[in-house]
């Protein structure tokens, strides 16, 4: 139980350290340096250190299964495998908040150690804003969701972790995602401090670019992991459900992507300063807004945390305090921004980046409005509606067509002024070739719709142009080419996946067969066995395909002991061209099972292309190419 106290007190110590750092930075700014002679860097390090200590204490409590701690009691169980005892730490509200704080203080420390090239004033202001955020979250942790609360009498056994969270991918999903979310706070603080000091210029842009890239890479990775998990654990072969929680992770990503492009204009042309600042602020605000929407339980989603209105209220106040603070600072110091009134040439890189931002902001507004509109409507008129996939698909997909075309054209243009577009003709011819190509692809399935045709054309256009760029001689911007290629591959896989996916759902009992296209699915037998903390029923299926090959599929039904939950584990055979996905569910009239078989083409390419998008970011980060 000693670790309960250690953990508890070290969070309190770091709360006071937060005040100390705030004061210290403030005094230094006012040049009262001689009053206190403590090294700021040490203070910042110790703040991180104490949060780390309390994180480790909670970890030890989880590893030892000390159920005297209420968080451990609610989320762990002695029979749980070691790996999930660890991941159980952040599989709940309190623990995940501690992880969030750990990363927040870590990035704060990293920022302070790595930003030596910046002026002291800028660093101090950034630290002050960071401390406001850290302070807010520590208070939140201690007063509304303390992970070190005790329970007495000490229970003998814990309640266990929700089985659908007992999954290797979901175990690493939160840390990665949080790294992405949390590093946006540095972008936020740094942008506010340079706004106050009036040095929002290309120098600052190339400094903050690395943080933007870093947070963007992790955010992409986190979303990817979540999506893979949803694919094989949650859904029936779906990987994106437009569920509120998914939307919430996508919103900062879109804002960050816009910022990533916009910051280039600031870096190269010292323009769009105020727009960049707005994006910096909105990215972080959207991250906190996401925390609010997910943890307050104001929205209704598959992935909800335990809800508590008190927590919601606290984050709401905190969120609006941050928005208020940044609004005030923005309006006060807006004049300091060097507003260049140069208008951009029409056919230049910067104009296309603007267009990219325009579309991204549109996508963002669709998702934002779609996610929070039901709340507004309910409060105002008591009407309750659901906004689901059809809404998002209808509003987003048509706009992808021009977006993709601009995306293919933009990168090949020059800054300031392009050479006369001598390649205009080639580009048009190339487009027409792609039009025919997609026509024939669609014709081969016999279903040519103008809309799909255009979408496929635009996408293939981007696809081939990035390949062409990759192969051409001379200077190449690898990171951009790879990321854009990844994006086109992603959209291509999603389109083809949507068009060619096939499925059959039927009720079968052992010994029955099911014909599907030219495949024959045979339900051979069921086997039972025992796992570490569950029993499982394995359905053994043989699928003969048209080539005469037969494959064994073994989807499972698991019955976890604590808490008693039945889950279905899909069996997925992945190949380069398609995933074959089989899942069974018990039907309660004893002998029959509900069997779903799906063929999902190019599934693996959806993951690979997202990895490529990330890879582009990594290259940029490592090479820091100009």
């Amino acid at each position, binding site marked *: 139980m000693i670790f309960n106290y250690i953990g508890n007190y070290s969070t309190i110590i770091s709360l006071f350290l937060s005040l100390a750092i705030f004061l210290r930075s403030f005094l230094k700014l006012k040049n009262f340096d001689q009053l206190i002679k403590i090294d700021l860097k040490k203070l910042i390090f110790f703040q991180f250190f104490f949060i780390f200590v309390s994180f480790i204490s909670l970890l030890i409590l989880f590893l030892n299964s000390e159920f005297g701690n209420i968080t451990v009691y609610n989320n762990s169980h002695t029979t749980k495998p070691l790996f999930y005892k660890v991941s159980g730490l952040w599989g709940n509200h309190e623990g995940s908040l501690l992880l969030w704080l750990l990363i927040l203080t870590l990035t704060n420390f990293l920022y302070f150690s790595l930003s030596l090239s910046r002026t002291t004033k800028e660093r101090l202001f950034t630290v002050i804003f960071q401390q406001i955020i850290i302070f807010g979250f520590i208070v939140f942790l201690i007063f509304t969701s303390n992970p070190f609360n005790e329970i007495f009498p000490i229970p003998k056994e814990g309640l266990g972790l929700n089985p659908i969270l007992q999954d290797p991918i979901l175990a690493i999903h939160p840390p990665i995602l949080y790294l992405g979310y949390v590093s946006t706070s540095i972008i936020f603080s740094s942008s506010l401090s340079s706004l106050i000091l009036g040095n929002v210029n290309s120098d600052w842009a190339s400094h903050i670019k690395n943080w933007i890239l870093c947070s963007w890479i992790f955010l992409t990775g986190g979303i990817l992991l979540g999506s893979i998990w949803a694919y094989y654990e949650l859904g029936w072969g779906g990987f994106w459900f437009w569920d509120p929680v998914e939307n919430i992770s996508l919103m900062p990503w879109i804002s960050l992507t816009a910022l990533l492009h916009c910051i280039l204009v600031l870096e190269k042309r010292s323009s769009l300063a105020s727009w960049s600042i707005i994006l910096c602020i909105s990215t972080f605000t959207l991250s906190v807004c996401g925390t609010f929407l997910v943890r307050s339980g104001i929205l209704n989603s598959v992935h909800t945390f335990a809800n508590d209105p008190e927590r919601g209220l606290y984050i709401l106040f905190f969120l609006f305090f941050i928005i208020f603070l940044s609004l005030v600072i923005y309006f006060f110091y807006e004049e300091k921004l060097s507003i260049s009134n140069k208008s*951009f040439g029409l056919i230049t890189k910067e104009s296309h980046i*603007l267009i990219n931002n325009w579309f991204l902001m549109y996508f963002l507004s669709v998702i934002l409005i779609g996610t929070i509109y039901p709340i507004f409507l309910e409060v105002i008129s008591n009407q309750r*509606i*659901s906004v689901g996939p059809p809404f998002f698909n209808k*509003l987003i997909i048509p706009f992808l067509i021009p977006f993709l075309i601009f995306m293919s054209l933009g990168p090949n243009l020059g800054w300031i002024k392009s050479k006369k577009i001598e390649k205009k003709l080639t580009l048009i011819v190339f487009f027409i070739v792609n039009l025919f190509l997609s026509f024939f692809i669609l014709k081969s399935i016999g279903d040519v719709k103008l809309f799909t045709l255009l979408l496929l054309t635009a996408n293939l256009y981007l696809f081939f142009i990035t390949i062409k760029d990759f192969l051409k001689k001379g200077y190449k911007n690898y990171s951009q080419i790879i990321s854009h290629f990844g994006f086109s591959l992603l959209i291509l896989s999603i389109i083809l996946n949507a068009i060619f996916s096939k499925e059959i*759902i039927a009720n079968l009992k052992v010994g029955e067969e099911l014909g599907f296209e030219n495949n024959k699915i045979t339900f051979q037998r069921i086997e*039972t066995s025992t796992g570490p903390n569950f029993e499982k029923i394995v359905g053994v299926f043989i699928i003969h395909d048209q080539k005469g090959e037969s494959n064994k599929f073994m989807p499972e039904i698991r019955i976890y002991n604590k808490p008693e939950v039945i889950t279905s584990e899909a069996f997925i055979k992945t190949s380069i061209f398609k995933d074959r996905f089989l899942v069974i569910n018990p*039907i309660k*009239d004893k002998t029959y099972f509900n069997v779903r078989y799906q063929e999902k083409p190019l599934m693996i390419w959806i993951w690979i292309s997202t990895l490529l998008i990330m890879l582009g970011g990594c290259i940029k980060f490592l090479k820091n190419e100009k």
Partner: protein
Amino acid sequence: MKKLSIFLMLIICLNNTYSFAVDKPTELENKIFKNLRCLICQGQSVYDSQSDFAESMKIVVRKNLKSGMSEKDIYQFMRNNYGEWVLYDPEINKGTYLLWGLPFLFFLIGGAIILRKLGVLKR
């Protein structure tokens, strides 16, 4: 075999009811299932949901389709019974003008700002 019977007992104990999963749904049926929100697992569509209620809902949809109702009729029927909330695709009406309109408005405003920045639109 003993384990299996334990398992089956467990299932029956956990859900006191009897479920009848819809056999081999057609494409239209699936489309409708995907657009209906389940009232029991409220984050999921009837298509994704495993609850008994969703299964009953599927049976009703199939029955109504057989009796000659169109897709729209079924949505109307569900809306009558359970309110607009059950549909994932909100229809355009007094309450949702802003929902459908605001994104377009933002798009137009953004476009105007950019055109001015690009010097196409002069003040």
